[in-house]
């Protein structure tokens, strides 16, 4: 479904990606793991069209999407929940979700998705008319994921959804990702929380300084030497 072929990307003079190749099949839950600055967010940015790779190609359903605009890519069914959530803080929860469903063609689908979202995130129903900026961090994260789900995405990309959340909420978010996966949503997950991620994913990629270091199923990766570095890095940097 999604295929990155040797993507290179840079910010001005800084090269952030040096030949990243990954693929995600329909219905899969795949994680992209790595230390801070490895290039995970940059990879998602390239897929979402926020950053244009200057070398390599990105295929979605076999067609190239590299260089397309973010709005074109969104219309193909790719949805990104960015690092730091980026909900519209001056817009109400209602308005945030309405824009989430911007690309939907039928009103019926909008209402169907909204009902599902109220089921997944009851708190959003309570806060429906409240400005997004007045929600708590955890509620904002739920809103960001809900907003992405409103568009009935075929590929959902989550950039560190558990970042900055209390342990109980982290559990909830991982349960939610697992549940979405069970329902058949294709997910590309970027996480610092290696343990929790490996519990739920089908496959994972390990990234380091703009390259994919290794990949495999959770069992394969757990026995792999590189994972040690990431564990240590994560433990060292975030004290987990």
């Amino acid at each position: 479904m999604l295929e990155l072929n040797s993507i290179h990307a840079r910010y001005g003079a800084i090269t952030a990606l040096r030949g990243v190749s990954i693929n995600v099949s329909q219905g899969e839950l795949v994680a992209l793991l790595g230390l801070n600055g490895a290039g995970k967010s940059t990879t998602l940015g390239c897929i979402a069209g926020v950053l244009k790779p200057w070398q390599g190609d990105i295929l979605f359903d076999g067609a190239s999407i590299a260089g397309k605009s973010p709005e074109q890519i969104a219309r193909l069914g790719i949805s990104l929940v960015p690092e730091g959530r980026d909900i519209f803080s001056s817009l109400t929860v209602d308005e945030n979700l309405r824009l989430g469903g911007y690309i939907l063609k039928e009103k019926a689908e909008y209402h169907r998705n909204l009902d599902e979202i109220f089921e997944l995130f009851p708190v959003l129903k309570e806060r429906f008319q409240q400005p997004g900026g007045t929600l708590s961090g955890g509620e904002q994260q739920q809103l960001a994921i809900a907003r992405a789900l409103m568009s009935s995405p075929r590929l959902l990309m989550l950039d560190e959804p558990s970042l900055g959340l209390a342990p109980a909420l982290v559990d909830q978010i991982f349960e939610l990702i697992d549940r979405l996966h069970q329902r058949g949503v294709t997910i590309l997950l970027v996480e610092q929380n290696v343990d929790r991620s490996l519990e739920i994913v089908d496959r994972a990629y390990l990234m380091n300084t703009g390259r994919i270091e290794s990949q495999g199923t959770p069992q394969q990766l757990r026995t792999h030497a590189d994972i040690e570095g990431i564990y240590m890095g994560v433990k060292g940097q975030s004290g987990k």
Partner: protein
Amino acid sequence: MINLEFIINTISLGSLYAMLALGLVIIYGILRLVNFAYGELIMVGGYTLYLLASFSPLPWLFIALLAVLVAMFTSLFTELVAFRPVREKSLTAMLVTSFAVSTLLQNGALLIISPRARAVVLPQIFQTSVMIAGTSVPWRNILTILTSLVMLVLLTLLLRHTVLGIALRAAADNFTMTRMLGVPANTVISAAFAISGIMAGLVSIFWISRSATVTPALGAPPLLVAFVATVIGGMRSLTGAVVGGFVYAIVISLLGVLLPPGLLEFREAFMFVFVIIILLFRPQGLISSKTSVERVG
């Protein structure tokens, strides 16, 4: 004298400046661009009024409507041919482009029409007054107030209750994220330029009803007023634009009655001192989008 006449005049001026500031801020909010060609849209509206009122048999209301439409389409056209090609490059490129568009439009008016002022034939209603509570109030002022009220209501309805309006507000908050939801950048930006052009067209009618003449350099004073008003109110907020427009009108009117006659010609200088004082205490302007939830109207 602070009497009813003064109050109505000031509200009318504030309404005019609020529309003026809104047209500038709606583009700034999304592109972070101070559109220096904004004043020239008012000039274009003014020349449309002049040409149609002098050389066509059309009724005035229709002429006014056409002036608004011409300003709107000029605004959309400048976006399409001048701003869109440089948009992805840099903000500086956009700023330089807006200077270029401003100069081109001014020179166009110089060449095609004349460097000299042209008298605009105004309808009767702009020269008559009505008695309210014993004071004579020019119709012009009443029309200005009513027009800006209608525009504020329409704009609020658009921004609160239509998907396009919600997308405009979202884009002012986080443009990239708005695009990632599938909202086309061009749709949002064109809408902003259209609204800006409509505001400029409406302002041109009432601005010219005060002087009854148009010149190629007509756009400079309203651009300055719009800019100062948005700085006072806060560049990031539409409410701020309205507040800034009114504060500007109130202060400039008060200076007009309070300053001794000898200092009246320095009214603008005093105005800038006032602006600097405001900025010393509130660098983000009176309404800052960081601390308050953005609401329009």
